[in-house]
């Protein structure tokens, strides 16, 4: 369409607390174009998009449409310029008990513009017309909480159209969708293009990126490392650009004799997030399950731990069936989970380090039901020393500790249990480098003590550094298995984003 109306970000820089997140980034999207923005976790793409949509301010750089400089200081400013973002968390953006039409018109109703009386019939007609523009026939009187996830996404897209969006940021819209649903979404994106709307498309699934995008920009470490027309780049180039020359992190990997099979999972499944997973972990072995965000790793760990009910499948520990109906059963069977949502699920932030560390082993620490204070304190002091937990005292509320030290508490509470199998779900999320190293050391010690470790992560480098075996998870299933040293990060990323198809 009209190149003069290009939305252009120039020389954008941003740092958080002295740490640089973006350095001189240029990015542009034209009306009627899909521009894919790619990058590994932490590459800076969300920061960049948050600046564009007004959630953050930038330290330096300009944003303009054509020749006109924009000043975007808030999400409202961005919306006034026709720049809208459809976030991944569709559920938080819709009001569940309102209808589709009401949700679509929400911003207008909230703005208090227009007549005082609501003309529901007219609003319904208008909503239908907007949905028809993108070829959707969702009934506008249906309540938002009765929609499928894919339909909710469409409603959100329709909502930005109601607000006369000119540029739309789609932040990983396909992550929770099935392939058919994703295809329907691409149809809608085509329709938007035809109507002259510029789309920034963020996704981890490379094949679909190649399929729907006009241009591809890859970011790494806060900089743009590749920006080409989609037709000119191969998938392999994109992967290499995303990973770059990965600096070697230190993994204190010690060789541990690997024993007999300890943990066997057969065909465990629940819903569409976990579709029949098989895996085994042997004594002393660290098995990593890698996958992108949304691959079903967290769901898998919760099934194994009995936190959510499984539809089918068996779990065995040392040959004994250990299907857990509740976490308490799992603990009794010898399974421990360090969950991803540390502050909500891993620890009790309001309770002291002491109480957190003793919770799973109160039975060991008490006599005829009474908790022995000296035993409890002794146990806590011992763990604080062994794991290097930095806290003023064992009586400190755990919420006051740094992320890494909270994680050590979440791990430490299991150390004195009889657990044989340790499940770690993204244990290094939000953890500083020093604490990371401590956590790797602790995991190594567990393996050394003959425990089995299942390490679920989206950080491929960690899996390569720590694991004896790496399983790649994609769309709820294990698609590949590799022994230590037999796989590169490129291959992991390829299978995690493309699934089973072999590398071309």
């Amino acid at each position, binding site marked *: 369409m009209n190149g003069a109306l290009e939305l252009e970000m120039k020389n954008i820089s941003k740092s958080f607390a002295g740490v640089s997140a973006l350095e001189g980034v240029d990015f542009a999207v034209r009306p009627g174009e899909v521009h894919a923005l790619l990058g590994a976790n932490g590459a800076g793409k969300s920061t960049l998009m948050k600046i564009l949509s007004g959630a953050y301010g930038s330290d330096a750089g300009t944003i303009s449409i054509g020749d006109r400089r924009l000043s975007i200081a808030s999400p409202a400013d961005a919306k006034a310029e026709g720049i809208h973002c459809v976030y991944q968390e569709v559920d938080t953006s819709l009001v569940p008990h309102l209808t589709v039409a009401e949700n679509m018109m929400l911003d207008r109703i909230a703005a208090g513009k227009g007549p005082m009386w609501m003309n529901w019939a007219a609003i319904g007609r208008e909503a239908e017309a907007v949905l028809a523009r993108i070829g959707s026939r969702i009934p506008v009187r249906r309540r938002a909480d009765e929609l499928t996830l894919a339909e909710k996404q469409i409603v959100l897209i329709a909502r930005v159209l109601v607000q006369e969006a000119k540029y739309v940021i789609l932040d990983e819209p396909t992550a929770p969708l099935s392939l058919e649903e994703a295809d329907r979404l691409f149809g809608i994106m085509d329709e938007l293009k035809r109507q002259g709307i510029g789309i920034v498309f963020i996704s981890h699934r490379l094949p679909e990126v190649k399929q729907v995008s006009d241009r591809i920009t890859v970011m790494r470490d806060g900089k743009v490392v590749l920006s080409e027309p989609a037709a000119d780049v191969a998938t392999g180039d994109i992967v290499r650009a995303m990973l770059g020359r990965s600096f070697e992190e230190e993994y204190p990997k010690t060789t541990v004799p690997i024993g007999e099979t300890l943990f066997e999972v057969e065909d465990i499944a629940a819903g569409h997030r976990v579709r029949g997973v098989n895996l085994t972990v042997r004594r002393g072995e660290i098995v990593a399950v890698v996958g992108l965000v949304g691959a079903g790793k967290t769901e898998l760990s919760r099934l194994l731990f009995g*936190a959510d009910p499984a539809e089918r499948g068996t779990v065995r520990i040392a040959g004994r069936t250990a299907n857990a109906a509740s976490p308490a059963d*799992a603990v009794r069977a010898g399974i421990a989970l360090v969950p991803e949502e540390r502050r909500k699920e*891993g620890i*009790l932030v309001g309770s002291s380090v002491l109480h957190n560390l003793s919770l799973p082993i109160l*039975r060991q620490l008490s006599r005829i039901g009474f908790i022995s204070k000296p035993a409890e304190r002794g146990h806590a002091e011992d763990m604080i020393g062994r794991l290097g937990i930095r806290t003023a005292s064992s009586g400190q509320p755990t919420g006051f500790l740094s992320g890494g030290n909270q994680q050590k508490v979440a791990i430490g509470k299991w150390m004195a249990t009889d657990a044989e199998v340790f499940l770690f779900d993204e244990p290094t999320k939000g953890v500083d480098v020093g604490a990371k190293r401590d956590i790797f050391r602790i995991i190594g010690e567990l393996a050394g003590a003959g425990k089995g470790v299942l390490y679920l992560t989206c950080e491929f480098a960690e899996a390569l550094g720590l694991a004896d075996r790496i399983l790649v998870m994609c769309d709820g299933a294990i698609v590949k298995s590799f022994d230590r040293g037999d796989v590169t990060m490129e291959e992991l990323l390829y299978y995690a984003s493309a699934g089973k198809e072999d590398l071309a």
Partner: protein
Amino acid sequence: MNNRLLQFSYKYGALLFIGLVVVFFSLNNEYFFTSSNLLDILRSISILTFVAIGVTISLTVDGFDLSVGSTVSLTTVATATMMIWYEMPLAVVLIAPLVIGAAVGLLNAFLIVKVRIPDLLATLAVMYIVSGIHKTYTKGYSIYNNMQFQDGTKAPGVMNPDFLWIGQGKLFGIPFPVILMVLAVVGAHIFLKYTRFGRQATMTGGNEEAARLSGVRVRRVRTWAYIASGVFASIGGILYTARVGSGQIDAGAPMLMDAVAAVFVGYSVFGAGRPNIIGTFVGAVLTGILINGLTMLHVQYYTTDIIKGAVLVLALTVTFVHLSRRKA
């Protein structure tokens, strides 16, 4: 300085306030600060304290038991009819209400833990059901010795004097209900603070999902908490019957709100910021002191509610101003 003052008022404000109230009443009435009056105050709050302990336990697991008042009413008439209508032996008279209290707790737990109705709503519904049962059971009449039925016949039994001693007797010059109350407060405090179950209950109340993922059987813990709440309310009912010597209809109705108030005043004691037994006891004591002292000053009964409400507002203000600052 300002901050330290706030800290101080948060921790010791409630106790300081009670001290001031006591001094004020003592200066205005020479009889107020005598041992017999102070024991009277304690005796007057003994039933309330039992009910409030139950509410404290339900709040500890992050629940809320609104049915305790009705449970007091039901167990009061149950206790009285056991003696007056059916002439049961003392053991049955004491055990039956405890079973009833436990059953109400179990019903609450079933609705909350199994059916997953929010605590407040489930216990509200049960409050109505239990209250209706107690009135249906007695046809709306209070139960007293040899009461006359509608058909002209008389009830066969009278209150057992041994039973009445529980509510009216003294041991070493101290009213027996006061002794029971102190035992219950100390027992419940030790239980919640030093036992495995108590810790699991506190942790469940702190963050149910995190406790569950630590292997705590949170549904079981919550079930027991509601049973305990029902049993404490039923002890309150037994004491009530023994105290007044009859089974009054709707005896427990005003007790729910007094108990809830005591528990929330308790949040501010020693800066706990959450349900705790000692705080609840202090809250109950404050209630007793206020009613006793104001009555001596010839303040009308209705007017004391204004003051009770104001005190609750004060305690809640101290607690929540502090809690929101701590978060910030």
